[in-house]
């Protein structure tokens, strides 16, 4: 199913529409309030974009530096060209250490990979521990937002779900539901042999991985099991601790409207001599899976993305249809660019068009990614590859041919406006338009007055 079909269903979903309204209130207003705290926000934003660009311009050298420093502290660094490679590497690590249970903190890269299915089919138990992701795992649904994965669900739905899956009395109070999940998940934290996390940043200088979380599950996943595997995209590397400090002034503000998240955890290698906690084995998997296709040229700017979600929170299309309509892991404007690149333009045909190009996303983006421009670029590519619907291509060709012949163009438009006028009802509205059902199915089309602009303009000059 394509975006257009899914979007129609989502617009009609009253519960979803209520849920999406909350997102706008909290995240959009929260971001504005938290940005106002920074007297030099434009400077910080410029610096953040420059930090990401610096990392990308010499990406191979920074990755090599990260690897060297990580290895020196006892981390095992793996490289994965595809999603299948990631799944295979994690399965191998699990097998080597006799792992039966895996606890996960939120990671969009593992969503890309379908890692949970891959591990479960290898006989492993996988438990998502981020509350939102846990709810989705119980409901067997994909996330609909990269920061607030379960934004499409109401409290009532969560109550029903917990009561059914936990086989427990139905609780309705949100803190009680949170405690119920805490108590269900605590034993898993204490018994799992492997923790899988993402990484918001890789710090080249120190060979560290960094994650930002609020719930504390990320700290558990990276502290308690004997094996920790951090999986992240190659573009996440950042040179220094100072650079990461700058980026961390923007990520929580743009993500959840917080000045800082509850936890920021920087992990460097496995457990050290004398430590009473921490994993004995620490693996990092650096994932390409389509990212190198964006390198070089203007699309490279997309890799500056720090996955804050601000572009979707501010997008009128996302605000109306939610994340599931986009059909893959990444929704909103950033998703409309990443999805066609990662899974092929032919598999995500209408996504580059799932935006009004209003420009809100670019304004909201903390690392100044020109999202509308990149979307326009993708549309061009689609056209070049002949991936546009035939009638759109034919119509544009015909228009192009006519527009180059002014006399003929004038004649054709004169005939057209008169024909349209003749079709109108007495109120001057057209009820149904041949080839224009997309417009007239839901609203009337105002009929033209009967003369073209060129005719009127010509007369006024005469």
């Amino acid at each position, binding site marked *: 199913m394509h975006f257009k079909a899914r979007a129609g269903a989502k617009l009609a979903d009253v519960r979803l529409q209520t*849920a999406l309204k909350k997102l706008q209130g909290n995240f959009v207003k929260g971001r504005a309030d938290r940005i106002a705290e*920074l007297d*030099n926000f434009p*400077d*910080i934003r410029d*610096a953040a974009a420059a930090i990401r660009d610096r990392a990308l311009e*010499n*990406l*191979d*050298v920074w990755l090599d530096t990260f690897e060297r420093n990580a290895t020196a*502290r006892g981390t095992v660094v793996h*490289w994965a*060209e595809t999603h299948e490679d990631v799944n295979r590497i994690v399965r191998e690590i699990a097998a080597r250490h006799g792992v039966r249970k895996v606890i996960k903190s939120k990671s969009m890269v593992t969503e890309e990979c379908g890692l949970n299915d891959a591990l479960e089919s290898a006989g492993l138990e996988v438990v998502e*521990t*981020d*509350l*939102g992701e846990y709810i989705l795992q119980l409901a067997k649904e994909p996330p609909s937002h990269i920061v*607030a*994965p379960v934004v499409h669900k*109401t*409290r009532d739905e*969560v109550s029903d779900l917990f009561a059914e899956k936990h086989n427990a009395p139905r609780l309705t109070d*949100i*803190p009680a*539901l*949170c405690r119920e999940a805490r108590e269900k998940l*605590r034993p898993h*934290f204490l018994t799992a042999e492997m923790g899988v996390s993402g990484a918001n940043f890789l710090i*080249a200088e*120190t060979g560290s991985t960094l994650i930002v979380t*609020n719930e*504390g599950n990320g*700290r*558990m996943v*990276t*502290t308690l099991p004997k094996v920790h595997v951090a999986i992240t995209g190659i573009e996440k590397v950042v*040179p220094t*601790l*100072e650079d990461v*400090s700058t980026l*961390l002034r923007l990520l929580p503000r743009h993500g959840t409207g917080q*000045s*800082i998240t*509850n*936890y920021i*955890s*920087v*992990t*460097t*290698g*496995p457990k*050290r*001599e*004398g*430590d*009473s906690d921490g994993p004995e084995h620490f693996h990092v998997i650096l994932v*390409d899976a389509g990212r*190198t296709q964006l*390198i*070089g040229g203007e699309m490279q700017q997309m890799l500056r993305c720090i996955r804050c979600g601000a572009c979707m929170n501010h997008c009128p299309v996302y605000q109306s249809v939610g994340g599931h309509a986009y059909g893959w892991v990444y929704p909103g404007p950033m998703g409309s660019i990443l999805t066609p690149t990662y899974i092929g333009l032919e598999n995500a045909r209408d996504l580059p068009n799932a935006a009004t190009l209003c420009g809100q996303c670019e304004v909201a983006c903390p690392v100044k990614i020109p999202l509308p421009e990149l979307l326009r670029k993708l549309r061009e590519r689609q056209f070049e590859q002949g991936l546009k619907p035939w009638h759109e291509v034919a119509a544009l060709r015909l228009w192009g041919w006519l527009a180059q012949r002014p006399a003929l163009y004038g004649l054709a438009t004169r005939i057209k406006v008169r024909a349209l006028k003749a079709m109108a009802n007495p109120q001057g509205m057209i009820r149904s338009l041949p080839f224009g059902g997309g417009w007239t199915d839901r609203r009337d089309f105002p009929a033209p007055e009967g003369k073209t602009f060129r005719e009127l303009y010509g007369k006024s000059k005469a």
Partner: protein
Amino acid sequence: MSARANILSRIRTRQGKAVTVRAAEREGVAQYLAEHPQGPRPQTGDDALARFRERALGLATTIDELRSPEELPAAVARYLRGLGLAPVAVCWPEFAALDWQGQGVSMDSRAARGDDLIGITGAFCAIAETGTLMMCSGPDTPPAASLLPETHIAVLRRERIVVGMEDAWALLRGEHGVLPRAVNFISGPSRTADIEQTVTLGAHGPYRVHILLV
């Protein structure tokens, strides 16, 4: 060819660079690392302690200001009594020798377990800009004590409050050289807003973070 070689050479090819890295590229990277320049810093006022207090309270952390470290056991006992919490806790070794018994607190100096309810820790330093505690892991500073219990009590010395995260890194570079296994920045009790965007304290980590300033 290995995945690593494929990925790295794809990056270079797409950027129009020769396959082998030039010395100048490595030097550029090494020089940037040696300089590790700071980015623009926001204004945070002149009084770091006041800023820290204001920010930490805004994150639902609570603060008690003591005159001397001797007051710690009494302050802990008072805090727990106020909340009706049982005075049974685990702590980092540096606090083991204080007179807990005299205040009726049963204290164990060991690594925290999943069912411990109160954890008492120190802190490496704190950041005024955001009201954040910075914790460094180590044999005597285990992270689990600030994570597993429902209540986390942190002892913070006033002179360890720095302005921004950059200053915290500078302190760490100066005192430790290399990073410990885990650096955790803690900004208030754990929380989630996953259900209906409603902020709820106490997700998987502590429900309460209480700072004793000494």
